[in-house]
């Protein structure tokens, strides 16, 4: 994914479906520029799955929006995003339309707000197919919609339902069906299960896993819940203050974190049965920094239990931390 782990991946002429190079996103606000994403890079080959984790304001959802060029006007974006060989930021509006839905599609959180309440879900699922002309007729689109509904575990009669007639879990399935309408190569899932119950979350995660296995779908999964990511994604990138501060194979990052922030985040989701966390919740003092007013030096140092004097001087970049792993901490 990053330079640090290229040694564990066969480099067959760098056949990446999605490449992100030194992505920087700065929002312009009335209080001045706010850097939300600062120098993020990663590469994904077909079938890869990357989990982006971090707390509110760490920049993870901004990355999702940037990958689809959905950022508000006036936002400054630098760096390079290549999707299937095309430079995303230099695409014409027509070229961009061709990429959205057919190359990359997104599943948002809050399934109720992402659906139009006065249209049947079937019509909403079929619309992108007709707009992007991936299906030639209404009849073909409806047929495809029926197949998609079956794939995500909804009966075909639900195509005629309005969003309010469906449960939260069913609406989330509709959003996934919609994102798959034009057979995208890359699926970006931004907190797709956060509002769902445990059992429904398990159903949706199993569905995403199955779709990925069946069709070599490339997945970017965004959430604050590290335990979900460790379960769904092969690789994990932990974000703090707009940067990736640790990355590697998800089981390794979750079971054996090296960055002090990752350690705190992993400990916040206790393992049931682990005696050390029984009646001993683990937290981290302080709050995530405001993107507009980052501390000098390592942005984590004010909350870091291991901070030293040198941490206040300069912000550490990602450095190798074992095979396929990297962390941005001077102690690594």
């Amino acid at each position, binding site marked *: 994914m990053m330079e640090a782990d290229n040694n564990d991946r066969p480099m067959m002429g760098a056949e990446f479906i999605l490449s992100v190079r030194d992505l920087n996103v700065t929002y312009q606000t009335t209080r001045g520029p706010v850097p939300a994403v600062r120098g993020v890079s990663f590469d994904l080959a077909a079938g890869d799955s990357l989990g982006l984790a971090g*707390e509110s304001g760490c920049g993870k959802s901004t990355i999702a929006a940037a990958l689809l060029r959905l950022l508000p006007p006036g936002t400054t974006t630098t760096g390079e995003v290549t999707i299937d060989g095309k430079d995303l930021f230099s695409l014409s509006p027509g070229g961009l339309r061709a990429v959205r839905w057919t190359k990359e599609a997104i599943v948002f959180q809050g399934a109720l707000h992402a659906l139009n309440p006065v249209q049947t879900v079937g019509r909403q699922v079929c619309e992108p197919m007709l707009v992007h002309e991936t299906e030639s007729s209404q009849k073909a689109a409806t047929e495809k919609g029926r197949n998609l509904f079956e794939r995500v575990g909804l009966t075909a009669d639900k195509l005629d339902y309005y969003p309010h007639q469906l449960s939260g879990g069913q609406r989330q399935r509709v959003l996934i069906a919609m994102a798959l309408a034009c057979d995208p190569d890359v699926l970006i899932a931004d907190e797709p299960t956060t509002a769902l119950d*445990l059992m429904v979350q398990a*159903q949706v*995660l199993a569905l995403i896993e199955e779709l990925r296995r069946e069709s070599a779908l490339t997945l970017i999964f965004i959430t604050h819940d590290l*335990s979900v990511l460790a379960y769904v994604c092969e690789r994990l990138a932990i974000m703090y203050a707009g940067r990736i501060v640790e990355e590697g194979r998800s089981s390794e990052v979750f079971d054996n974190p090296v960055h002090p922030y990752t350690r705190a985040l992993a400990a*916040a989701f206790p393992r*049931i049965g682990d005696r050390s966390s029984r009646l001993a919740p683990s937290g981290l003092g302080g709050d995530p920094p405001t993107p507009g007013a980052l501390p000098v030096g390592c942005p984590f140092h004010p909350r870091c239990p291991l901070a030293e004097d040198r941490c206040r001087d300069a912000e550490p970049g990602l450095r190798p931390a074992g095979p396929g792993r990297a962390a941005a901490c001077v102690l690594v």
Partner: protein
Amino acid sequence: MRTGLSPIVSVEDVSVFFGSARAVDGVSLDVLPGEVLALVGESGSGKTTLIRAIQGLQSVSGGSIHHREKAEESKDLRSDSGVQMIFQDPTGALNPRQTVYDIVAEGLRIRREGTDEEKRVSDALARAGLRPPERFFPMYPHQISGGQRQRVVIAGAMVMNPVLLLADEPVASLDASIRGEILMLMRQLVDDTGLSILAVTHDLGLAWNIADRVAVMYLGRIVEIGTTEEILENPQHPYTRALLSVVPETRRMEQQILQGEIPDSKRIPAGCRFHPRCPLFRSGDLDETIAARCTTEDPHLTLGAGWHAACWAVDPQTK
């Protein structure tokens, strides 16, 4: 947890119906002094309705709720300061135009307990970990962080010296790192002051972190209750077993993903309400006489101390 003492609150066979929807359908539950009891379940299980009934915000359709304090002083339930509630979203729970001091003092003013107001507000803030308290007096909610806001909500409850804190998803809207801080505070309040907490949550990690006992709700009923270790390490009810198997943190169990969602509380299945989704029943491995009871007889939890499950197959004490 001090067992043997009389319960802080006793819920006896309580039902709450909304028209034909049986949101809470015959629940019995004791909260003991000085314990954290986690009431876990999915949306639609009736857990929030049950704690609203315990607080007196929701009238019950059947059964009764006894508060120990109330029985002694025969107070009107709604003005009972002995039961306080903290909600999920601290930002929504705080008036943006009130200072932290006024927010915390409000309960005292409503109850006209204003004689030593400043000292009580100061003590409550300190107890909630906002120190020095005076620094927070003039601040408005937008001037403090998310974690501090939830501490202000807790201080507003603690200023009334409650015996029972009802917490509805107390950390669900908080960032991961802050979550642990607030859970630590809740556990500390129980250990230091002997308060009891009834926490409603879908977060089994929260239960593992702070609860003494766990009660599992399904479709308006408690289906299994016991110590946290009993329920989370060795669950017996097939619903609890399935629920635990899908917690991403517990990868030791084979996943049992139940199909569909909790049925509508207007159409509660006959017999055991869980049997249409029950992996044990559906496996066909059950003894014929037990399987027959699953479809015809509604299993009830045995009351009293210790572990119990409402299941014909796993608990011989089921009635």
